[in-house]
């Protein structure tokens, strides 16, 4: 099994290396691999077929960009096509000054309710006045779940009653809006299968009654080949104006994103990136295309690093390398952790995945241990590591649930890092090195 689509695509395409002009047969065999790779990444069958056809048409006899070798040319075409498929630039839903009603829909368990909470949180912080409508009367305690989220965000909620007619819901909503000005109504609906005619009818009736300005289809990033019929049916029956891709913090390969935009022709507005209320990000097609290709999500990484650097400036790293202390190490480590798991960060660095031997995994457990050890030290010990004698090391090992050997190893790594930093000191940058 291949690590990711990027490696696989590049493997396929590299077979073209060393050729001059691309013959049809060359391209065909490479593209068969590309098709398999796309399928392994859960890109829908039809979409993968279309995709390969388009790339083929462009690549055969392609003499554009003569500065590139043939394999680079194909990578380039695949990349551009991927990006085009995902919809070019990042798009956000349009917000009017008043009267915004957003209807959330999707399969069971896709992440609608959580997304409603996140949207409310996001837009409240931007000065909007959201109102939540809990219309999932199906799943036990679904309305309670939304109520808890509404309380946390600090926005009101209107709960639809069991068996309530859509017209009644609309009337209650209007009454609520007359009483209390709200400029963004977020309607959470029950999850449903796209083949469940009765429930799709119900959704259509609710849709007709509340007249949404946005119809958002929430899709789980881990979805396989079903993305296509699901997106197609919701689009045909209700109309999809935009997509939300949930659970993007997992390690799914992103085929669902490709397929959903392809079939609806609508943009992915947001990606869900954690279970917490602030885990919602604007979706950037060009970055995802890069990540799928294994070329690294450099933009995201750079952006995160920049944000952290700013934070670090007022967060107190002692600047000079000779002053690098264990306190700095802990600080650095926590900053890095904010950027995501190490596996994730590696995925964002071009080529990093390839440099790792097959099967090698970043040991997140080791990192957790290091953090535990550093946390068990006193402030004085962290700023002046010289203090760490044998008895202190024993205490720290006990306190952090590790062994004295672990503590010793960490201190040795720290010293090595410090030495390295002194050497690299002239650049004025702290390398993120704590060995291992």
């Amino acid at each position, binding site marked *: 099994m291949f690590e990711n689509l990027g490696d696989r695509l590049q493997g396929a395409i590299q077979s073209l290396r060393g050729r001059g002009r691309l013959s049809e047969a060359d391209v065909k065999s490479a593209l068969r691999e590309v098709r398999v790779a796309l399928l392994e990444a859960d890109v829908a069958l039809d979409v993968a077929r279309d995709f390969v056809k388009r790339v083929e048409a462009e690549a055969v006899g392609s003499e554009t960009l003569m500065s590139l070798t043939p394999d680079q040319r194909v990578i380039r075409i695949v990349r551009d096509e991927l990006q085009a498929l995902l919809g070019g630039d990042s798009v956000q839903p349009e917000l009017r000054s008043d009267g915004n009603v957003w209807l959330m829909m999707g399969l069971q368990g896709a992440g609608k309710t959580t997304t409603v909470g996140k949207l409310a949180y996001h837009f409240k912080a931007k000065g909007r006045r959201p109102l939540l409508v809990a219309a999932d009367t199906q799943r*036990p305690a679904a309305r309670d*779940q939304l109520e808890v989220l509404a309380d946390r965000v600090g926005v009101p909620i209107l709960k639809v009653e069991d068996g309530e007619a859509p017209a009644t819901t609309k009337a209650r909503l209007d009454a609520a809006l007359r009483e209390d000005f709200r400029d963004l109504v977020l309607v959470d609906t029950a999850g449903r299968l796209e*083949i469940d005619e009765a429930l799709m009818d119900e959704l259509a009736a609710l849709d007709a009654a509340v007249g949404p300005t946005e119809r958002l289809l929430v899709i789980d990033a*881990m979805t*396989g*080949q079903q993305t296509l019929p699901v997106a197609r049916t919701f689009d045909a029956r209700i109309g999809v104006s935009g997509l939300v891709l949930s659970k993007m913090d997992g*390690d799914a390969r992103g085929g669902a994103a490709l397929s959903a935009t392809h079939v609806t022709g609508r943009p992915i507005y947001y990606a869900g990136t954690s279970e917490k209320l602030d885990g919602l990000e604007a979706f950037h097609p060009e970055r995802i295309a890069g990540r799928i290709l294994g070329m690294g999500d450099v933009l995201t990484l750079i952006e995160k690093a920049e944000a952290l650097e700013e934070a670090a400036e007022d967060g107190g790293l002692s600047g000079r390398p000779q002053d690098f202390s264990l306190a700095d190490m802990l600080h650095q480590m926590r900053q890095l952790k904010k950027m995501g798991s190490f596996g994730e960060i590696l995925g964002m660095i071009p080529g990093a995945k390839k440099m790792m031997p097959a099967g090698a995994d970043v040991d997140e457990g080791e990192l*957790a241990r290091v953090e535990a050890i550093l946390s068990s030290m006193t402030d004085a010990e962290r700023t002046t590591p010289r203090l760490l004698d044998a008895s202190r090391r024993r205490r720290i090992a006990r306190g952090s649930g590790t062994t004295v050997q672990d503590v010793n190893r960490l201190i040795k790594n720290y010293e090595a890092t410090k030495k390295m930093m002194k050497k690299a000191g002239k650049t004025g940058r702290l390398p993120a090195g704590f060995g291992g």
Partner: protein
Amino acid sequence: MSWFDRLRRGLGKTREVLTTDVRDLATGANVDWEELEFSLVAADVGAGIAADVVEEAKRERESGTSVREALEAALLDQLEPDRRRQTLRRVGFDLDVARHRVEPAGKVVMVVGVNGVGKTTTIAKLGRYYQEAGKSVAFAAGDTFRAAGSAQLGVWGERLGIPTHVGPDGGDPGAVAYDAAAARAARGHDLLIIDTAGRLHTQHNLMEELKKVKRVIGKADEGEPKDVWLVLDAVTGQNGLQQARRFHDAVGLTGVIVTKLDGSAKGGVLLPIVRELGVPIKFIGVGESAEDLQPYDAAAFVRALLGGDADAA
């Protein structure tokens, strides 16, 4: 209505790539194996296994079977991690048909999985299933994280008349599991089913938490939980294998339950999971009510996966 009828009803509503392909292609003398292979992929079987299955089916067909029979046999082999059972099936024993009940190995079952796959609902279904089998059942609402996660199971417990151990929201899931396991041992319930919060398999800390919950149960009730069942959404693509691997590494799975097979999803990712991990499939979920649970039957699963006429096989 049997789950198969439900599946079929589902199939009737959508055009199934696979159904058409298998039927249309099987009638002609020239079988387009490549198309069949990609059709299997469309059922989420994965490109690697799809290729293997097709190779195997080609061999099978040399002995004169129809394309469909050949494919069914090849798929069944993939779903049979047990060599001995595979051989028995080959010589004509229908292994699952006579199976009435899926028995848990011990007294405590822990249910795990990523967010939204159907853990809580499946626990309600399992509760009803074992209640009907005459067992006294208890629930533990171990999802203290998601808003109203505990309340959801509480509602089911009330509906089914199954006592549900609920801890404080935001509380320690280990504590809830410990108390519930100790209470089960003390009161002598036949079976305790423990819910856990949904978590992505990539979240290191949450996977560690899950290990701890499992350990803690053993402290309250020696040797338990004897079963850890992974709930998998049939709509999941190739990422399902990754999920299963990580959960298996962390807490040692003894079974898999596939939900939402009442939709048009085929759950083909079960094939790579069974092949790689050898973990047996226990049940399938076919709806949102407490009775929508069926013991898994490999032959029926394969027939449904291939779509089309169930009785032809």
